[in-house]
C-alpha cells in the first residue's frame, strides 16, 4: 500500500496521531519491562528490609550517614570509579583509533580478542592477576595491597567498552574533514582536538558512563584483588546482606548508591544533550585504509603488540594452566571435562554448559535489543525533560546493586505468578544489564541522523514507521550489532542479579567454572581453567560472527 494514502485521508489516521501512538507503544514496552523486573523488586526489597514490626524504620539511614567507615566506603567507590574510567579511556583510545582508521589482516580477530576479558569470571581473572602482579610477579611488579591492581583489572575488563563504542563511531567519521584541517596548516593534535574529538564526544560520553557505572558497582574485582583493604558500596551491601544478615543497613546503602548514580546520570544526560551533533556517517570501507606509510605501519604493529601484552598475557596464562598437567603439556583436563567420575548430581557436561550459555545469551540479546532499541528511538526523537528522565531511568539497572536487585526479585516476583525459579528469569536478568548498553550505544547514533532527513521524508509523505524502517534502521543496525555483541557477552559472563540468587539447575559455563573451583585437587583446578578456555573460545567465535552482521552499506563495521 502506498503511504500517500495516509496523507489523502487524514481523518482516519493523521501522521501526528500515528506518531503519538507509535511513540506511546515504544515508551510503554521498556517501562513495563523495567517496572516489573527492576523497579518493583527494588522497591519491594527496600520496603521489606526497612520494615520492622509493621512499621517503616528509617534508622538504618542515619546509621549509614553517621558512620565514618561507611562514608569512607562511599567516597572510595566514587573516586576509584572515576580513576578507572579515565585510565580505561586513555589506554583504549589509541586502539580504537587504529582499528577505525586502518585495515589490516587479523583486525577482526583482534577485535574479538579485546572482548574476551569482558566475560571471564572475576575469580579466574583474579588468579591470573595475582600470578602476574603478586609477590612472584615475573615482571618484578608486586601490586598487591595497592589500588593499582584494582585499576588495572578494571582496565582489563572494560577495555572493550571503549574500543567498541568509540571505535564504532570513529570508523564512520569522514577522515577528509581532518585531512582538510591538516591541509590548512593545523597540527595533528589540533586537527584531532578541534575536529575529531567533538565528533566523537557522544560515543566518548557513552563509553565513559558505562565504564563508570560498571566500576562504581564493582564487586568481584574488589573482593578478590582488594585483599579486603578496599571496599565499594556493592561489596559492603553484599557483606551486610549475607554475612551479618543486616538487611536494613544493606537497603540503606543500596538507596544511597542509587541516589548517587541517579545524580551522576542526570548531570551526564544534560551534558550529552547539549553536545550531540548531527553527522554524515561514511561506510567503514571509505574510512579505514591499509597503512601506507612506515609510520602508519609502525603504529598498527605497536597497537597489536600493546593489546597482546595488556590483554593477552593474563589470557595466555589461563590457557597455559589448562594445558599444564604435572608440569608437562597435555589435554587431560579437557578430556576430564566430559566424564562424570561418580555420576554425581553436580556434574556438568561441557556441551550442556555451552548449550545453556548460548541459548540463554540468545534470549537475553533478543529481549535487550527489542526493549533497548524501542527506548533509544523514543529518547532520540525529542529532547525534553521527559526524555532525559526516561534516559536516566533506563541506565539505572547498570548502576544499582546486583545483590539488592537479586534479593528483590526473590521477595517480589512471586506476584502475580511465581517467577522466582523460572528458567527464563536468568536471561531476563541478563537483559536488564544489557539494555542500558543498547540504549547508550544506539541513542548517539540515532541522534546523529540529520533531522532534515527525517523531516524531508515526512514531508514527502513517508509514515513514521516507514521513516524508521528505511532511514533509521540501516543506521541503527550498526549500533544494534555492536550492542548485540555486548548483550551476548554480558549474558555469557553472567552479569547481574540472577548470579546472586538461587536458580534452577541450568548450569552455564561460569557456573561450571565455579563448581570446579569449589573443590580441592589438581584435576578440579585444571578443569576450571579448561572450562574458562572454552568460555573464551565461545566468546571469540560469537563476537566474530556478530561482527559480520550488516544491513546496507553503513551497516558494515
Amino acid at each position, binding site marked *: 500500500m502506498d503511504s500517500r*494514502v495516509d496523507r489523502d485521508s487524514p481523518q*482516519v*489516521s493523521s501522521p501526528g496521531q500515528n506518531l503519538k*501512538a*507509535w511513540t506511546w*507503544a515504544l515508551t*510503554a*514496552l521498556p517501562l513495563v519491562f523495567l517496572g516489573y523486573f527492576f523497579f518493583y523488586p527494588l522497591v519491594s526489597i527496600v520496603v521489606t528490609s526497612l520494615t520492622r514490626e509493621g512499621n517503616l524504620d528509617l534508622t538504618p539511614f542515619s546509621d549509614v550517614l553517621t558512620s565514618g567507615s561507611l562514608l569512607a566506603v562511599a567516597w572510595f567507590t566514587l573516586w576509584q570509579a572515576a580513576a578507572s574510567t579515565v585510565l580505561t579511556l586513555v589506554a583504549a583510545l589509541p586502539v580504537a583509533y587504529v582499528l577505525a582508521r586502518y585495515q589490516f589482516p587479523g583486525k577482526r580477530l583482534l577485535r574479538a580478542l579485546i572482548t574476551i576479558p569482558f566475560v571471564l569470571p572475576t*575469580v579466574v581473572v*583474579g*588468579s591470573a592477576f*595475582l*600470578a602476574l602482579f603478586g609477590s*612472584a610477579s615475573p615482571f618484578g611488579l608486586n601490586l598487591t595491597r595497592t589500588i593499582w591492581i584494582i585499576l588495572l583489572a578494571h582496565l582489563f575488563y572494560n577495555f572493550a567498552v571503549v574500543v567498541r563504542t568509540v571505535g564504532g563511531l570513529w570508523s564512520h567519521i569522514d577522515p577528509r574533514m581532518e585531512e582538510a584541517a591538516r591541509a590548512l596548516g593545523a597540527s595533528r593534535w589540533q586537527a584531532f582536538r578541534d575536529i575529531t574529538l567533538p565528533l566523537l564526544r557522544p560515543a566518548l560520553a557513552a563509553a565513559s558512563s558505562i565504564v563508570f557505572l560498571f566500576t562504581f558497582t564493582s564487586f568481584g574485582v574488589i*573482593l*578478590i584483588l582488594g*585483599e*579486603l583493604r578496599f571496599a565499594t558500596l556493592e561489596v559492603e551491601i553484599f*557483606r551486610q546482606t*549475607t554475612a*551479618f*544478615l543486616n*538487611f536494613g543497613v544493606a537497603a540503606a546503602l543500596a538507596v544511597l548508591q542509587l541516589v548517587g548514580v541517579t545524580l551522576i546520570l542526570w548531570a551526564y544526560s544534560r551534558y550529552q544533550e547539549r553536545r550531540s551533533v548531527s553527522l554524515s556517517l561514511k561506510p567503514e570501507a571509505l574510512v579505514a585504509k591499509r597503512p601506507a606509510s612506515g609510520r602508519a605501519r609502525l603504529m598498527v604493529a605497536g597497537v597489536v603488540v600493546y593489546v597482546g601484552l595488556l590483554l593477552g598475557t593474563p589470557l595466555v596464562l589461563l590457557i597455559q594452566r589448562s594445558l599444564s598437567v*604435572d608440569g608437562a603439556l597435555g589435554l*587431560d583436563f579437557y578430556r576430564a571435562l566430559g566424564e562424570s567420575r*561418580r*555420576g*554425581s*548430581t*553436580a556434574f556438568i557436561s561441557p556441551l550442556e554448559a555451552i548449550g545453556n550459555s548460548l541459548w540463554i545469551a540468545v534470549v537475553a540479546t533478543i*529481549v535487550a535489543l*527489542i*526493549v533497548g532499541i*524501542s527506548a533509544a528511538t523514543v529518547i532520540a526523537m525529542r529532547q525534553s525533560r521527559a526524555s532525559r528522565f526516561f534516559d536516566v531511568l533506563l541506565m539505572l539497572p547498570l548502576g544499582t546493586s546486583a545483590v539488592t536487585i537479586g534479593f528483590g526479585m*526473590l521477595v517480589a516476583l512471586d506476584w*502475580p*505468578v*511465581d*517467577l*522466582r525459579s*523460572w528458567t*527464563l528469569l536468568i536471561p531476563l536478568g541478563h537483559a536488564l544489564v544489557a539494555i542500558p548498553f543498547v540504549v547508550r550505544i544506539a541513542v548517539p547514533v540515532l541522534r546523529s541522523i540529520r533531522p532534515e532527513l527525517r523531516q524531508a521524508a515526512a514531508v514527502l509523505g513517508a*509514515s513514521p*514507521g516507514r521513516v524508521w524502517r528505511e532511514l533509521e534502521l540501516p543506521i541503527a543496525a550498526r549500533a544494534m550489532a555492536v550492542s548485540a555483541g555486548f548483550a551476548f557477552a554480558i549474558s555469557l559472563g553472567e552479569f547481574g542479579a540472577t548470579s*546472586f*540468587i*538461587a*536458580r*534452577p*539447575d541450568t548450569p552455564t559455563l561460569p557456573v561450571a567454572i*565455579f*563448581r570446579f*573451583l*569449589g*573443590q*580441592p*585437587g*589438581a*584435576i578440579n*583446578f585444571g578443569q576450571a581453567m579448561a572450562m574458562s578456555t572454552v568460555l573464551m573460545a565461545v566468546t571469540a567465535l560469537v563476537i566474530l560472527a556478530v561482527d559480520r552482521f550488516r544491513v546496507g552499506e553503513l551497516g558494515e563495521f
Partner: protein
Amino acid sequence: MHLKSLSRDSYASWGALALAVGLTAAACSSGGSDTVTLLTHDSFDISEATLEQFTAETGLTVEILRAGDAGRMLSQAILTKDNPLADVIFGVDNAFLSRALEAGITRPYEPSRLGQVIPAYRLDASNSFTPIDFGDVCLNYDKAALAELGVDPPETLTALLPVGQAADAVEELADSLVVEDPATSSPGLAFLLATIVVFGEGESGMSWQDYWRGLRDNGVLVVSGWEQAYSGNFSAASDGDRPLVVSYASSPVAEVIFASEPPTEAPTGIVEASCFRQVEFAGILTGSDSGSAAEKLLDFMLSKEFQEDIPLNMFVFPVVSDAAVPIEFQRHTVVVEDPLRLPPELIEENRDRWIQEWTEIVLR
C-alpha cells in the same frame, strides 16, 4: 487503513505479547505435585544413583536449587520465609543455626532414623533442624614446602606467632599463612571461632584478639573466599607461596582423589589442634505445601544409602552411627578425636561482634 497502522504499532507490542505468553507458560509449568524442591548451597553434591533410588522408593523427583554459599542461601531463605522457594533446606551450619531458628524458617519434624544420629550432633532440641553431616575446618599444610623450609608441621596455633610472642613460635613460619575473611567465608568463620575457643576473650593470658594481632604482625594473608585461599595462594595447590591455609580436614583426601596421578601419600596434612567442628543441618521450610513429600526427603537424607554417599561427594562425614566411611577417608585423613566446638547460642550471641572486632584488628 486501520489495519495498516495497527500492524505498525504491533511491531512494538510483540515484545510485550511474548512476555505475557512467557508469564503464562511459567505459571503453568511450575508446581508439579510429584517433585520435592531442595534449596541448598553450591557445595551440595550427591550421586545421581542415590537420588534415583529415592525416586524409585517414593515416586518423588528431587529438584535442586543452588543458592550460592551457605550465607547467601540462608539470607534468601529468611527473605522468602512467607513464600519459600523450596520445600527443604540443606546446608545451614552450627555457626548460623541459632539465627535460622530465630528466624523460624523451618518447622519441627522428627525423621524416622533420628535415633541413629550420634547424640553430639543433635544441637537443636526443637528438631526444626536435623543434622545431616559433619566435618572439621583445619589448618592444612604443604608437606613439601615445610620440608624445604626445614621445619616440622606446626602442632599448635601459637607456632604461627612471631618469635618472642610464644615459646614454640617458629621463625620460618612468618608470611606463611593464608586465611579467609570470616564475614564472607564459612571456613574463615570456623577458624576465627577455633581461635576464640583456644584463647578465649582474655580471661587468662593471651586473648583471641592478641593472637590475631600476632598473626597480623607475622604477615597473615586474608582473602575473601576459600577458592582464592586454596586455589590461589596455597603453595600445594597453586602458584601461590603460602604453605599454610585454612581448609577442611578432608582436603588431603581430595588432593589424592583429584590428582592427575594419584599419589600413595597425600601431599598435604592437617594441624589437629586447629580443627573446629562444623555440623550441617536440613529442615522443612515453613510454608512449604508439600508436607509429606518434604518429610520423606528428610527421612531419606538420614538413610544409610544417602549418608554413605556423602563423604566422596561432599567430603564431609555422615552423622549416623551405622554408616561406613570410605577407605580413602580412613587412609588420608583423621577424624579428629576432640575437635574445638562452641554452642550455637553462644556463636549467635557474639558472632557479629566477633567478626567486627576481627575486622578492626586484622584489616583496618
